[in-house]
């Protein structure tokens, strides 16, 4: 990564540091709720944590990609000595860098809770990891659509579809006997289905990133 790309990444983080701080605070409250409580509060904490992670990703995509175009600050950035691919790289790093940190906090919190709390069976771990990785896939998909289409409308459509699909995806994964049958079990069962699902998700993430760079490299007009 060259110096200008890094300056662009820092610029995006600089203008979002306050919201990011707020999301970080909410994330910590969510983890605290999950750790301290049980029953309804546990549910509230879990939902809050997932909401924070999803919102961090969407917030950054809109502010750093969509609004940069609609607020007409893109011409200033593209007048700098950078290529469109460097611009794309900077956006990927700024977005996925922050999202990865938030997502890792979510994963670490989830894993710690499942492994430490007796009320949560360890068998929940593969299912949780598959669903959490799907959140990452959805974020990369939303970012890719924002960068490629440069359209607020399309990004909102994909975002809405992704949010609806999370529930359907959870239901689908749970309905697979090789996953669903072990969720309530005392040990995490990393069978072929669980591993394949996660590997497929990771491959989709890399594929989406590759498609984004390919589509961006085919563009002739950058404004």
């Amino acid at each position, binding site marked *: 990564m060259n*110096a*200008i790309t890094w*300056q662009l990444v820092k*610029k995006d983080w*600089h*203008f979002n540091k306050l919201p990011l701080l707020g999301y970080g605070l909410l994330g910590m409250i969510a983890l605290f709720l999950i750790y301290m409580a049980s029953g309804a509060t546990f549910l509230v904490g879990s939902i809050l944590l997932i909401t924070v992670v999803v919102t961090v990703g969407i917030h950054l995509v809109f502010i750093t990609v969509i609004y940069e175009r609609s*607020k*007409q*600050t893109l*011409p*200033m950035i*593209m*007048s*700098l*000595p*950078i*290529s469109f691919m*460097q611009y794309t790289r900077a956006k990927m790093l700024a977005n996925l860098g922050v999202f990865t940190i938030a997502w890792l906090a979510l994963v670490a919190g989830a894993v710690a809770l499942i492994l430490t709390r007796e009320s949560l069976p360890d068998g929940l771990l593969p299912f949780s990891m598959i669903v959490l990785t799907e959140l990452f896939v959805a974020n990369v998909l939303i970012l890719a659509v924002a960068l490629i289409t440069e359209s607020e409308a399309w990004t909102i459509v994909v975002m809405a579809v992704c949010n609806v699909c999370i529930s359907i995806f959870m239901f689908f994964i749970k309905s697979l006997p090789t996953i669903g049958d072990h969720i309530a079990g005392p040990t995490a069962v990393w069978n072929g289905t669980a591993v394949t699902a996660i590997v497929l998700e990771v491959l989709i993430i890399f594929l989406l990133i590759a498609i984004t760079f390919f589509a961006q490299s085919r563009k*002739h*007009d*950058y*404004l």
Partner: protein
Amino acid sequence: MNTELAIKLSGVTKTYSHFELSNIDLELEPGRIMGFIGPNGAGKSSTIRIIMGLIQADHGVVEVLGHRMPRDQVAAKWDIGFASEDLRLYQAGTLQWHIDFVKSIYPGWDDDYAKTLIRRFDLRPEQRLKGFSHGQRVKAGLLLILARRPKLLLLDEPTTGLDPVARHEVLNELVDVLNDERRTVLFSSHNTKDVEQLSDQITFIDRGHLIASQDKETFLEQWRRIRFEAPDDFVVPELPNVIESQQNGRLGSITTGRFDPALTDALQINGAVIQSVDNMTLEEIFVTEVRANRPGEAA
């Protein structure tokens, strides 16, 4: 590659669904200031963006400061300062943040000059751009490119929307900047007075076509409007280089883009009495050129 020219466009074409930039040939030597005049939607911004490498021509060759565009845009953009009417700075950032950001990228940033411009433009570095007026935003944008000391300035309608005081301040600063004979400037506007004040070369564009490109002095020297009085049945004879002719009763005028005393002689021989031979303003020349080049509008 012709490295002597700051800008060279050859046969550049760009087609949109509603508009076509057609076969643009344009040359600008280093140290020259070209005023790029055209009505709204004429293709000024598209041409400048093609020169800047921000959009790619469908056909043709674009060379800027010896670099092929858009292929070598990264190398070229180190030496280009670009200001556009629709370019915005970050509302949440202070002017000082913008200065630090640009300074971190360009090693040639001139701190002393930046401070001078801040004083001249009466800007407050600690103020967020959100609180800036349009005039202040334009000045801030110019500060950010001028303090980099770029070799080439591409200014796309920089004075549009400014109040008279802000416009005066911006133009004065540009006059100072343009005194540097090594700097090349392409300055687009639909305001011919701004362009006339700053430029030494003028190019007219209309509906995606370049319709004229010459030295400003040549334009102003060669264009004349000849007013005459003639009998009611007088018919303006076929004369060379006449762009437009009008007759209303006994009074008439012809406009030429290449004045020659032989024109007045020819009118007089045919019975007209010459009342005046007037120089034309750049605006009058521009309007006449546009009308003459639009199908069905030439007189």
